[in-house]
């Protein structure tokens, strides 16, 4: 019984050590995953958000992209659109926040592939967007490319993937 208890204690200690290691020294995959989660949170806003809060969100959102970032959106039923650089992304985000009463962004089935040099990463995921008072959540497959610049992972490219051609 004592041996079993010691073994369990050892396993718990190893588990705790592994968890602490992950917390202190997160892997690039974990950092990219966090950045994607942050992107979803920042892009989400509700009717209760004030204008100041929305302006802050725009600023944070723009800061998540590289200066030369390119966003290509070609969702079904919508006009294809390409945004080049932070300024165009900022303008698009501003008009989105003005036009829409609320927006909910979620990422699911996120798969992350970090390059061997650990400076770029590719992310494939399903993006689910709920706009304004709409009941229907729109889903699009997306591909993101992130670059590590000054220690932080920034989105350099975002594009919709055509599930059905």
């Amino acid at each position, binding site marked *: 019984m004592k041996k079993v208890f010691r073994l369990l204690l050892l396993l718990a200690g190893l588990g705790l050590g592994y968890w602490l290691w992950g917390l202190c020294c997160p892997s690039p995959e974990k950092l990219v995953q966090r950045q994607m989660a942050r992107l979803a949170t920042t892009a989400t806003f509700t009717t209760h958000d004030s204008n100041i809060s929305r302006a802050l969100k725009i600023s944070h959102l723009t800061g998540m992209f590289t200066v030369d970032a390119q966003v290509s959106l070609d969702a*079904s*039923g919508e006009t294809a659109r390409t945004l080049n650089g932070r300024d165009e992304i900022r303008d698009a985000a501003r008009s989105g926040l003005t036009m829409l009463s609320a927006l909910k962004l979620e990422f699911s089935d*996120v798969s992350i592939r970090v390059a061997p040099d650990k400076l770029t990463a590719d992310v494939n995921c399903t993006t*689910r967007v709920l706009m304004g008072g709409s009941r229907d*959540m729109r889903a699009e497959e997306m591909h993101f490319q992130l670059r590590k610049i000054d220690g932080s992972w920034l989105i350099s490219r975002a594009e919709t*993937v055509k599930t059905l051609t």
Partner: protein
Amino acid sequence: MLSANDQAVQPHWLQVAFIGRRPKATLIRILALVTFCFVTFKYVLLPIRIEGISMQPTLHDGEFDCVNCLAYRWHEPQRGDIVSVRLAGPHVMLMKRIIALPGETLTFHEGHAYIDGKRLAEPYVKFECDWEHGPIVCSNNQYYVVGDNRSMPFEFHTQGRAERDRIVGKLFL
């Protein structure tokens, strides 16, 4: 009539109700049931909830169903099958009906689908449709999938050619 000895080994009725007369056997049964449910609902029958109106009146918004992932293990998808097409993964999928098979050419004229020039009988399409669309050729690995509700304009309906490896399975019910 029970002897005093029999009464001593008789488990409490609460124990009998919750864990049975033989707890070890109950535990094994629970483990077997959990394993069976995990394997079934993770790899064989994927539970899904329908969202949207594109498959009406066959499937309704909010309905629950299952996708049979083994349906195409021994044969290829057939015309008329309602299939699930994965996006980046299995958590969000498109539920659509196959109307054209690999190598076929599809045309929409006056709202009707034509396969290689022959009109396709589609009793499941109940709403009016006026789609006009030029020939769409499916390659050897593509299936044309579309919803049953074609009352909206062509460009507002999510449809198109799906690669074979994107088709996860067939609607179970």
